[in-house]
């Protein structure tokens, strides 16, 4: 779909397909969010710019931006926004749309962690912390994984000593009681959300 600049097409899409997206039109471009974000300097685009780009119809650029993935959910922007925009939620909503549309930046660490976390979680209904951290260590290949694990060795041993990490979890670990019920629930939720947000 080609979008003419400064028409409402993409804004309308954001309103329909992004959580809290209907707030974007209420931004008054004051820039307080951009100035308040503790990680602002590391973003490709500030929230202010993201909102302006949505109005300008820059769909590709918005959805492929790494900005939404850099949000740490500190909520500083929401607290300060004079127009009370739920900026953090919009950012996460945009990230989700970007991912579902296949436009999210590749090899973005936050995105990778998110995927690992999700895949880990839905298997048993509980996060297997050992597998999750090992997954993170080895995401960039085996030798890097060994290096990472060695570097974190003392932390891991300490946690084991303090009984905060069970090495036996490597066998599969424990899960929720009704695993299939849990997975059915997730499937239904996704079905509903996909219908509502027009996600294939």
């Amino acid at each position: 779909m080609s979008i003419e600049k400064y028409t409402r097409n993409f804004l309308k899409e954001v309103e329909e397909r992004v959580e809290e997206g209907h707030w974007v039109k209420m931004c008054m471009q004051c820039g307080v969010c951009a100035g308040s974000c503790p990680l602002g300097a590391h973003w490709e685009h500030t929230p202010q710019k993201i909102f302006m780009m949505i109005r300008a119809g820059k769909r590709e650029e918005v959805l492929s931006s790494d900005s939404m993935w850099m949000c740490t959910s500190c909520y500083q922007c929401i607290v300060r926004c004079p127009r009370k925009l739920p900026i953090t939620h919009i950012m996460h909503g945009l990230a989700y749309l970007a991912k579902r549309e296949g436009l999210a930046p590749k090899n973005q660490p936050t995105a990778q962690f998110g995927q690992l976390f999700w895949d880990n979680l839905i298997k048993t209904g509980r996060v297997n912390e050992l597998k999750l951290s090992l997954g993170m260590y080895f995401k960039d290949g085996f030798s890097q994984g060994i290096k990472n694990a060695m570097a974190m060795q003392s932390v891991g041993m300490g946690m084991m000593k303090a009984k905060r990490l069970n090495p036996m979890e490597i066998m599969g670990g424990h899960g929720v009681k009704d695993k299939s019920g849990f997975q059915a629930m997730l499937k239904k939720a996704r079905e509903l959300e996909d219908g509502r947000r027009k996600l294939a």
Partner: protein
Amino acid sequence: MADMKVAAYICQGCGLGERLDTAGLAKVAQKEGKAAVVKEHPFLCNAEGVAMIRNDIDNEAVTHVMVAACSRRAKTEAFGFTDVAVSRANLREGVIWVRPDDEASRETTQEMAADYVRMGCAEVKKMKLPAGNAATATNRRVLVVGGGISGMTAALEASKAGYQVVLVEKGAALGGWAAKLYKRSPSRSPYADPQDTGVDEMIAAISADSNIKVYTNSITSKTEGAPGRFKVDISQESGATVTEEVGSIIQATGFTLYDANKLPELGYGKSANVVDQGGLEALAKAANGGPIKRPSDGGEVKSVVFVQCAGQRDETGTHLPYCSGSCCLTSVKQAMYFKDNNPDIDTVVVYTDLRMPGNGEDFYRSGQNKGVTFTKGKVSSVEATGNTCKVNFQDLILNEQTAIENADLVVLATGQVANSGVDVDAKLKAEIAAAAGDSTLLDAYNASQAEGAVKPISVLNLTYRQGPDVPQLKYGFTDSHFICFPYETRRTGIYSAGPVRRPMDIVQATEDATGAAMKAIQAVENAAVGRAAHPRSGDLSYPIVRIEGCTQCKRCTVECPFGAIDEDEKRYPVFNESRCRRCGTCMGACPVRVISFENYSVDTVGSQLKAVDVPDEFSEKPRILILACENDAYPALDMAAMNREVYSAWVRVIPVRCLGSVNTIWITDALNSGYDGVMMLGCKHGDDYQCHFVKGSELASYRMSKVGDTLQGMGLEPERVQVFEAAITDIERLPKLINEYSDQIAALPPSPFKGF
């Protein structure tokens, strides 16, 4: 009038009795002040003290009262005797509150107090009780020029207050600019949607109002007189002229949209689809709630771009340099014309800053809710191709040059130009600028005066010496004291309201007109009893000229900030007392000193400064005269005293009505009497002036710039006479300034004129 009998009263309250030797002060009043009655009192402003003075006036034939107590700004009711002349020696705020209470300061503090007693006695002897102006006139009708929202509001408000109104409108019908609107921006909660203009209701109310007489198709072709007795010729289109007598005038002549033809780069004139805000209102009116069609071919409008600040806030000097403060509201409203009809129409407002006065922020939010897109950007050009336009602009958030293609309509927000008539100071302003090296104004002025040039048309056609219209300050808007008296023009009894005064929207214009109506009523009531308008409200004095001494130099007629003084056929000044604001600028201007007020004259101040006891050059006690503006500097000093700020004991402060009233003879007299320095404290001047009499402080600083020659002639250092700007908020700054100046003067050798 009976023989003068001066009585001096010295208060011992508020610590005066403990800090000062009041018996000594009484002796000064008696021996040096030559007061016939001298009394001390422990608490002068209480009922008993006031009764004592009252009794002396009634039974002892006292005609002149000198009260040595607190500042003249305090206890004005207690000491406000209306049947005798009263002067005040400021011993509390002027002496004990600004001096340290210690043994070392006792002597100088007492000397300060004694001087103020001498000054009070000297002043009161030169004062007369104002007899009141016999030339009062009592016409209480109000003339309103302009029948738009502002004019109609002013007329209705004045009528509601019980005053008769004459309403003159140039056009064929009342309503003005608002009558051309389809809807107006909201004035009521929730400020979400455009609302009806209400013009029809106002017109109906006016035609049903027997107090309001309406002339349409008419102009004011001649205005003469003064508050309470204006005579106005009203010329009608038919050729007939009617003369109406009125007491005061409200000019509500509104604005014209800045000419979009001057903006060809924004496509105006090149495509029928580029309109100004007025053009869009016409389209909306024609559509009357239905879809607004594309002007070029009547096609469907799918996309509209609003260009804010078109020809406004221009820094290149080509277009309007200012913001009109109302066009953002209008663009939001006009975008809603489209959105309310069809939400799918793209409406983009390209702005650099949105300015939403009053409750406009709610309206802005409502616009966003309705889907109007707001884009921070600066439009560089509009290209018209076929039936659509391409709007090129710099996106100021994304910082890139970009464009909106295929806009069916482009609306230019061109802003307001005041319909204020002739700029009576144009020549003077141009000459001043040319003298400073910038001749553009002068060239423009000369071009405007050339034969065949389109000359501005006067609105009021005043027969005043200083020109046919009320003076303008900047950008053609009428001049008024922006902070203190916003509706008061520089022509007493003539008030301006609405966009002719400054750019504004309907809500503000309505408020403005109501305020101006109240002021116009106050003006006729004041004129009827010969009272001054503010800031000297209630003053019954007026300038009296000893015409046989006049040299026809015309300085008073030229310099009067309020155009109060005309000229007769022999070029003598003709004072119109009711137009006078009692600032005394004429008195300060007069080189032969023939202008005075009964209670304020060259003598009342001159005798005060001469009454001060100037110690000889060996005593190391310099004397510094401070002439302080009574509107800002003097109250600031009083407040500094309330905060117990300490300042030098060498200064003697005399309040003046305005620095404009300072006659250079006072400076020469002071220096001749052996003062070591003269300090003048007046209000800020320039385009953002705070002078309560508009031009007074400016004229004073101009006159004092010429004092250097006098000083040189006397062999004195130029820094002995200095003018400082002071605001009423300078409570901490002024004492510091005085002390610095005092140190500076003390470092100079003593004045060689002491002891003569």
